[in-house]
């Protein structure tokens, strides 16, 4: 069979494409090992020849607690986003509520509000509620980055669920909630994973909310940790890049695992028509 040689060829192409895509990431890693005096060498060194671990030393000394906070916030955001958006997507896609179109429309508009204006609004609200510098507060704020997206994505995906399946469930005496839980949700697994991924990524890399709402608190996410190396007149670039590398490692592992999970679900033939 020619199958093997053909997949081999595809794997190579895939590797090349990925390498191209990740070149900037490599460059960041390169800088994280570079000594101060070599940072702007011309022409630049493609490998950190006179590498230094200075950046990493600073990061490992100071940044690990921030990673934990970011992880908690990321997972919290994922849960909240899916819990809010999945039922909404189902209703908009399948139950045809009156005013549903208007609602999707509002979500679209909501996404256009500049992050910094959102953050100013949250600041005023949280100050009244005493939620400033709290982890749950930041989770709710970060979820606003993902919820409108999630609702629209769930709507788009769930409208693809065949109507006959829902009718069959209804015939069996299942109400909307049961239909949702045992038919629609399992069939929308891809959407759930997609939404979760982005909800996680957005909250992981959020800076505006973190800085306005959590700045100076006991629990700061990793994006604020980076600012330890950005002073008034001076930036320690190897430490900044090292923080980014250290910060993306655990998240990268999560990503790869999540992708495995999707792939496994698909090949197991999860739900087919």
């Amino acid at each position, binding site marked *: 069979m020619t199958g093997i040689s053909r997949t081999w060829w595809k794997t190579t192409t895939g590797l090349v494409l990925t390498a191209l895509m990740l070149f900037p990431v490599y460059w960041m890693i390169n800088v994280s090992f570079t000594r*101060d*005096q*070599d*940072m*702007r*060498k*011309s022409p630049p060194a493609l490998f950190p020849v006179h590498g230094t671990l200075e950046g990493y030393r600073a990061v490992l000394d*100071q940044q690990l607690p921030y990673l934990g906070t970011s992880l908690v916030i990321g997972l919290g955001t994922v849960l*909240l986003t899916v*819990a*809010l958006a999945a*039922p909404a997507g189902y209703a908009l896609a399948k139950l045809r509520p009156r005013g549903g179109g208007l609602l999707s429309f509002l979500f679209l508009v909501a996404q256009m509000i500049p992050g*910094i204006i959102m953050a*100013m609004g949250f*600041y*005023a609200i949280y*100050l009244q*509620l*005493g*939620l*400033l*510098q*709290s*982890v*749950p*507060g930041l*989770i*709710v704020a970060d979820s606003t980055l993902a919820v409108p997206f999630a609702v629209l994505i769930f709507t788009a995906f769930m409208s693809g669920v065949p109507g006959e399946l829902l009718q069959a469930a209804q015939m069996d005496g299942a*109400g*909307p*909630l049961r239909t949702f839980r045992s038919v629609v949700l399992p069939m929308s697994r891809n959407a759930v994973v997609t939404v979760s991924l982005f909800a996680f990524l957005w909250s992981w890399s959020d800076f505006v909310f973190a*800085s*306005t709402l959590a*700045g*100076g*608190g006991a629990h700061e996410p990793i994006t*604020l940790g980076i*600012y*330890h*190396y*950005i*002073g*008034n*007149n*001076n*930036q320690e*670039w190897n430490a900044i890049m090292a923080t980014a590398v250290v910060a993306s490692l655990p998240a990268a592992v999560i990503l790869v695992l999540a992708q495995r999970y999707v792939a496994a679900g698909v090949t197991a033939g999860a739900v087919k028509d």
Partner: protein
Amino acid sequence: MNRPTGRRITAAALTVIAVATGTTACSSGGSTSAKDEGSSTYTIWDPYPQFAKDSAWAKLLDGCGTKAGVKVKRTAFDTSDLTNKALLAAQQNNSPDVLIVDNPVVSTLAEAGVLTTTDDTKLDTSTVDPNLLAAGQSGGKTYGTPIGANTLALYYNKDVLKKAGVDVASVKDWKSLTAALAKVKKAGKKGITFSAIGTEEGSFQFLPWFWGSGAKLTELDSAQGVSALKLWTDWLKKDYAPNSVINNTQTTSWQEFASGDYAFAENGTWQLANAEKAGFDYGVLPIPAAGGGNAAAPTGGEFVTMPVQGDTGRYATTQKLVSCLTSTDNLYATDTTLSYVAPTAAVQDKQVASDAKLKPWVEAVKAAKGRTSDDLGTKYPKISEQMWKAVQTALSGAKSPKDALASAQAAAK
């Protein structure tokens, strides 16, 4: 009524409530507002996130709190974020008791009515160098006291100059500096690097040349002003300065100098520690004015201010805190860690006595000028924005220096 549906709705609604209350319930524990921790806690905001909880700076704040008989809660913010944060907090009546901000921001915050004057709070500023204090004054009132100052000068690489056959003593005015750059280029090295980025940093770096030409900020397009911008533009055209300066921050520009290829770099006091690490012999030279002598450089560094509070009874304690922070001993310690020049003569002497390398910097700071001085106040930010735009426009070749400054002047008015 359709019963099953009803129950389902109840269940759905229950989840709503659970979600809604769940999020608020777990967070009601930690109260975080600046004021609700009682009158014995005083809040301090500073732009020094690089100092962790166990740093000397944090300990100094705690110590001053203990002396004043109160607890201090310190929060460090990113500088670029602090102005907005301070305005937002003031709008919500949540200002900190002590606010340490970059000096050109003081006049903006004062204009907003966020800051108290030193008359209100009886803060003594008599020992502070008047040229430094001026950055925190507007309309005849003083809105804080500097914690330290820095300014710009020219660092030079002795090895590069030697190879190019340039005697640094010959660099006295723009003409001799340009001649030196030409020699350096001929020797196969690079001339000078600076930062002309499209932010306040760019204006900060251009000002010594602008002032050194004899120009005034109220008239950007004067013949002198144009000559300053022409100086920079010509350097770029002749390749004495790299094209990347248009996008350089002061850090990037420093990294270029640290590569050892450049003869000169315009940079600040704060790079002293890095200069020691650079691995080549360096010197420091005041920025020359157009026709000789030293140009006035702008002052950098932060001010300690006391924002307006609803409860004016707090000022007395806050004043104690600020006085403690700016006492001679503490200023010495703080300015050493920040690599700043102290704002009072007594501490400056102490600094020079312990580190002779600081001497040219102390002199530079004494000759320096606040950006918002000359009673420009909140007019400065507008002028500055047009100025950095004009610099970028001219350096990138989009317009001639003259046209760029002419449209800047028109827009700044």
